[in-house]
């Protein structure tokens, strides 16, 4: 299978010099797919609502953690917080509007159950929320702070980076704010535009001392959130807001943890490694299916889960096996976390790589035209590919597969460990 794929790719390479990629030539399936690539046209149509660009793929029902219940993402967060508040008497939850349940209903019922001294609202002051949370954590409470949208985390950036991250180090381990966990809704949601769609994980990974975790679904979210809360380091937990209602699966009712800094290989493959986190994992799973079906390319899909510190070993092992890597995220490409993964992998696995590492991320270049596009997407759906949701999804996926081919076709294939 691998040999066949390489043959195919070699064929594609010979017929498609990179420069003529857009024009398309007849012949290989790759070229045909490239011809089908959506080209933005300025057709004017009445606005249409975009369907989600992915289908949520639920995890298999877990059996090792006891009884499970059907929950969506926000319910699994509520369940995790419920477990924490009942087992840890020092746990407190605070943030804007958490008392009535939160704007995404993640804290529904907790105030009634545990009291207003444990689940309370803060005024509108992110810097104050995080600073206050650091103080509470240092003094021994398990502080779970909510920032209403990840886009609003920037007033608190100084507190996180300069205070929370460095507390243990600068006090020589005398003090620490390991009890602090910050939760924030994260990522594109379709109508969010500039200030309700950002994915700021890259800003925080640049700072040693904090952990950044992003789940792909309810079952993962509960386990990872409980791990973050239990972890002795300040953690930022980003929750993909588009999945709050869309992602439904069976989640254990009792408390359980999923280890941090461990990536998960969702499906094994031999030709290319695809790495993503959060919502994008589901997109890549569909891409992997499409690549298998249309190109016979076998993809290994990895969910990174913990962004910082990330599981370098799992990703590198996979790249050694496949020889090709594609990282995808919603945040803009420049300075996005894919750049860090890319850099590390090429350092560790240079001789195993058969093609340059590809990053498929929200476009950027300059001042986040991705946000511009999100604004436009929410109001100008006519600018973007075909109307019906399945066609639109198909077009997006073709884009990914095109990138796969492109990254694969850049270099002539060389013998890798798996072919010997």
């Amino acid at each position, binding site marked *: 299978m691998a040999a066949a794929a390489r043959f195919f790719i070699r064929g594609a390479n010979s017929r498609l010099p990179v420069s003529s990629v857009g024009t398309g030539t007849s012949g290989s399936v790759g070229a045909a797919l490239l011809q089908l690539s959506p080209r933005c046209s300025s057709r004017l149509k009445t606005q249409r609502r975009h369907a989600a660009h992915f289908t949520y793929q639920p995890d298999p029902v877990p059996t090792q953690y006891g009884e499970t219940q059907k929950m969506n993402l926000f319910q699994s967060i509520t369940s995790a917080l419920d477990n924490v508040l009942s087992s840890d008497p020092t746990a407190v939850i605070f943030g804007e509007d958490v008392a009535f349940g939160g704007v995404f209903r993640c804290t529904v019922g907790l105030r009634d159950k545990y009291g207003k001294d444990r689940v309370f609202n803060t005024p509108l002051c992110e810097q104050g929320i995080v600073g206050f949370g650091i103080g509470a954590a240092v003094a021994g409470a398990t502080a779970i702070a909510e920032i209403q949208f990840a886009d609003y985390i920037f007033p608190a950036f100084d507190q996180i980076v300069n205070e929370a991250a460095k507390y243990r180090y600068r006090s020589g381990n005398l003090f620490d704010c390991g009890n602090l966990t910050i939760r924030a809704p994260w990522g594109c949601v379709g109508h969010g*535009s500039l200030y309700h769609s950002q994915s700021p994980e890259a800003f925080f990974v640049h700072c040693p001392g904090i952990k950044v975790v992003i789940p792909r679904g309810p079952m993962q979210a509960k386990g990872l959130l409980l791990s973050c809360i239990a972890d002795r380091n300040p953690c930022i937990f980003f929750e993909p807001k588009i999945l709050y209602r869309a992602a439904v699966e069976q989640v254990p009712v009792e408390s359980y943890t999923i280890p941090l800094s461990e990536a998960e290989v969702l499906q094994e493959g031999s030709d290319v490694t695809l790495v993503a986190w959060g919502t994008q994992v589901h997109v890549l799973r569909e891409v992997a299916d499409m690549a298998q079906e249309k190109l016979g390319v076998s993809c290994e899909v990895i969910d990174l889960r913990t962004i910082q510190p990330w599981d370098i070993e799992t990703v590198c092992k996979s790249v050694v096996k496949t020889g090709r890597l594609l990282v995808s995220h919603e945040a803009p490409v420049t300075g996005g976390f894919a750049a860090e993964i890319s850099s590390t992998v090429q350092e560790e696995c240079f001789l195993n790589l058969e093609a340059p590492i590809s990053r498929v991320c929200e476009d950027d270049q300059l001042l986040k035209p991705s946000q511009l596009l999100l604004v436009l997407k929410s109001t*100008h759906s006519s600018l973007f590919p075909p109307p019906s949701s399945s066609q639109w999804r198909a077009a997006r996926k073709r884009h990914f597969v095109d990138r796969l081919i492109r990254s694969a076709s850049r270099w002539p294939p060389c013998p890798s460990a798996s072919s010997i």
Partner: protein
Amino acid sequence: MLTNISNVLRACAQRNGAAAVMSARSYADFTTQATFEIKKCDVFKLDEAPATEVVMTREEGLKYYHTMQTMRRMELKADQLYKQKIIRGFCHLYDGQEACAVGIEAAINLTDHLITAYRAHGYTYTRGGTVKEIMAELTGRRGGIAKGKGGSMHMYCKNFYGGNGIVGAQVPLGAGVALACKYQGNNELCVCLYGDGAANQGQIFETYNMASLWKLPVIFICENNRYGMGTSVERAAASTDYFKRGEFIPGLRVDGMDVLCVREATRFAADHCRSGKGPILMELQTYRYHGHSMSDPGVSYRTREEIQEVRSKSDPISLLKDRLLSNNMASVEELKVIDVEVRKEIEDAAQFATTDPEPPLDDLCNHIFSNNPPVEVRGTNPWAKLKSVS
């Protein structure tokens, strides 16, 4: 006799249109101006207060009425269009608070500067935007005031700096604009607005300090509509006397539902600033009928009775209308004609906003940086290179 003629003419007017009415009753019938008693403002660190007896002319009254009615209708139309999914994204409506925008504008000049938060449609209108441009911006079309790229929260026009999404972020910006005014010595000032929720942000206090230290000509205005999203002021603020929060900045608390009160207080504040005394803080006590945004029904944190009560007792447009009518400064028919005119204008604007084409694809990546020559930007499809021109 005169009455008969006027009746006939009025009947004609109702069939034909607006213009005839003005001639139905002669100017002698209307009072050209009247003096009104307005509520006294609470003051903080001030020896004087704004006047409590104010004069309003008939022209002014009709202008305020026209402007407030336009704003009210525009917001209600936006509500309608949003529910029809013609407007997408976020939409924060200003109905109920019209007296604030109109009163402030009445006391400053168009050469002065103004900056506000996301509930900005009203201010865009008073600062010089047309209803057409505003509605087209809401629907994201090329005729929009920000070329369709800004949306509800990002509307701008000359001397109006928006339209800002992040809560409280516009306040330091306002102080900066005021610094530019002082530096350039042009006797202009900056009106810097924020809400009761934003009043608890740290950057506001930083701005108070800088403005006071450097005696910047800035009027800080807190539009206290009693709810920061869903949180009432009592639950969010240790001190709900927002006009005293400046501590070393003099303050005024003003009835924000009365356009004359707001105008008088703003006049007072503007004089204060222009005389070089530094910043001043105003709290406008007002109310919004809609929820925080279109996704907020607005009734989960307050009762319908409360909204109804404010609507019936303190609606700014009704207050002004009563004043005009009871002082014989306008007639019911005249105001009705204005209503009809306004409705038509809004309908036309909505029609334009719905049918205007969306911005061209070439515009997609423009104005990211200021660049010369044009720069290439990668599109969502990596083989679609888009040009960015500035």
